[in-house]
């Protein structure tokens, strides 16, 4: 006779309500797992999808994602001439907050050489890649744009010609791909008031330096901020080429910093993502702990409610195992049912989350094992109390 099941059947409503509560907690743990892994996946998505072997960035900088990097646009010609390099492409990336689709949205603009350069969107969910030098864009579906829609950025309207899925930056923001000149224009475009103020300040500096007004006017264009910079040069190497050798060559002769793609990944994971993943990891551990404490308390309360029945069982000569099994089975039933409900709930709702959720089978298995072992340990307090209860408790009024 399975006493645990009989007890559950008798208090089915209460048991289901308990499972619902615990499964919500476990669901949060699973979602945290998903966010944790999703955060890592989002963080390196761009790096993994550019198709580059090397990243050439400004000297002494950890760019282009962890730190701002400015490289002259024409630097890619010099990089292309390095032995072992089969392709070098200009690449620019920056995050903006603009009105898109009727609401203010944060996204990252990627500018790349649309005529065969590296760093493009790759496989699209709909539409086609950019094939015009200007005024076309490919956007991630997260922005809620549709093919053919016009988006106003800076001073121009851009037509959505393609839609990418899952194209995000390290913060989970959707990506917008533009041709390099368009991306530079959106980035460096100043409004008229700002241009006038900048010119006036530069003019004053030249006059204070002893130039005549005529000389200052002539020199003024030379002081204008450069608008032909890029974030990095993406490099593809010939098969069999040693990336370390090429990187050393570029560092030594062209005075740039060079990272291989694995190094760029590590830079991202150990730099920008480290704190976020550490916080998520901490929250995850705390939630597991809280869930187990709640399960322990629930099992304890369920056992205390049955303490007279347990004493009666002891008086009737029940072995310790009968008592242990009653408590342990209920604990496992609660833990396993809660986990199963949480698993189903999370997988049904994962698509509605604003952040990318990635559920690795290994992570889920570890969480399951932790909950299972934790559930057994959590029932320890109740088992200890039950085993200490003397049979004489059953006697008397």
């Amino acid at each position, binding site marked *: 006779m399975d*006493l645990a099941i009989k007890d559950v059947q008798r208090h089915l409503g209460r048991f289901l309500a308990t499972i619902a509560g615990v499964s919500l907690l476990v669901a949060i743990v699973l979602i945290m797992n998903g966010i944790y892994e999703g955060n890592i996946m989002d963080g390196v998505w761009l790096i993994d999808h550019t198709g580059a072997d090397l990243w050439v960035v400004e000297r002494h900088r950890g760019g282009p994602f962890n730190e701002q990097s400015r490289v002259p646009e024409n630097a890619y010609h010099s990089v292309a001439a390095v032995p072992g390099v089969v392709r070098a492409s200009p690449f620019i990336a920056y995050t903006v907050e603009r009105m898109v689709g009727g609401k203010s949205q944060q996204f990252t603009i990627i500018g790349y050489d649309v005529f065969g350069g590296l760093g493009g969107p790759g496989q699209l969910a709909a539409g086609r890649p950019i094939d015009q030098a200007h005024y076309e864009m490919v956007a991630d579906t997260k922005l809620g744009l549709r093919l053919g829609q016009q988006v106003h950025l800076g001073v121009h309207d851009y037509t959505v010609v393609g839609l990418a899925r899952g194209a995000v930056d390290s913060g989970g923001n959707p990506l917008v791909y533009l041709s390099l000149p368009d991306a530079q224009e959106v980035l460096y475009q100043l409004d008229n008031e700002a241009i006038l103020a900048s010119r006036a300040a530069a003019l004053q500096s030249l006059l204070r330096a002893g130039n005549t007004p005529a000389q200052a006017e002539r020199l003024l264009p030379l002081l204008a901020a450069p608008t032909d910079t890029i974030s990095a040069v993406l490099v593809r190497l010939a098969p069999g080429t040693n990336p370390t050798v090429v990187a050393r060559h570029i560092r030594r002769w062209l005075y740039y910093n060079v990272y291989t793609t694995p190094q760029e990944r590590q830079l991202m994971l150990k730099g920008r993502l480290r704190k976020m993943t550490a916080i998520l990891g901490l929250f995850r551990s705390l939630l597991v702990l809280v869930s187990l404490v709640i399960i322990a308390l629930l099992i304890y309360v369920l056992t205390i409610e049955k303490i007279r029945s347990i004493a009666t069982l002891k*008086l009737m000569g029940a072995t310790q195992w009968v008592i242990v099994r009653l408590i342990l089975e209920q604990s496992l039933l609660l833990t396993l049912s809660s986990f199963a409900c949480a698993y189903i709930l999370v997988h049904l709702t994962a698509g509605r989350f604003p952040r990318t959720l990635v559920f690795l089978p290994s992570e889920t298995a570890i969480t399951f094992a932790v909950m299972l072992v934790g559930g057994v340990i959590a029932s320890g307090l109740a088992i200890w109390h039950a085993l200490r209860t003397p049979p004489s408790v059953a*006697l*008397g009024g």
Partner: protein
Amino acid sequence: MEALRVIGLRKVYGSSALAVTALAGIDLSVQPGELAALLGPSGSGKSTLLLCISLILEPSAGTISVNDQVIYDNAWTGLDVRRFRREHIGFIFQGHNLIPFLTARDNIALAMTLNGTGDRDARKRALELLEYLEIGARAEALPASLSGGEQQRVAIGRALANEPPLILADEPTASLDTDRGMKVIELLRRVARERKSAVIAVTHDERMIAGFDSIYRLKDGRLEKDPPR
């Protein structure tokens, strides 16, 4: 063969100056089929005697035998206490103490399964016992939906489940009115006669003693037997 024999049973709580003598040399003999009442005021040692006979509380000295098997002789004799209790002693409690999440039938079957009977056999025999106790129709009812008298019948059925030679009843009529209480005593008497089990019932209700074969009174740790009526 005696169902229960107690010789010179003593139980002292505490030691030296603080020692309290709960049982001061009890002699008791109950035959199979005998219905014995154990009366006494609160604090007279009734519960202590019951706990000692139930193998829950270790006496300080004396001898206890059940079915001629010595279980205590100034020390436990080393038998498996739980197993002995399952096989030789049935309990009936003041508050019935039925397992609330088991049906009447399962409450009785549980006692048998704990003693190694298979589920199917146990449930079959439990139904037979319920019919014997005239509550077969309530077999699938949970304790909460049974009346006090019905619950006590189920409790009696549970005590009888493993056909023990000794049944200990702790205030079996305390939670019942006089009529129902009398019916329970009659039932215990029938059980004792027909099943050849010795039944010792602790009570302080003088109205119930008419139905008992023998009456023992405990006072200040000493036992006296009423003369036969």
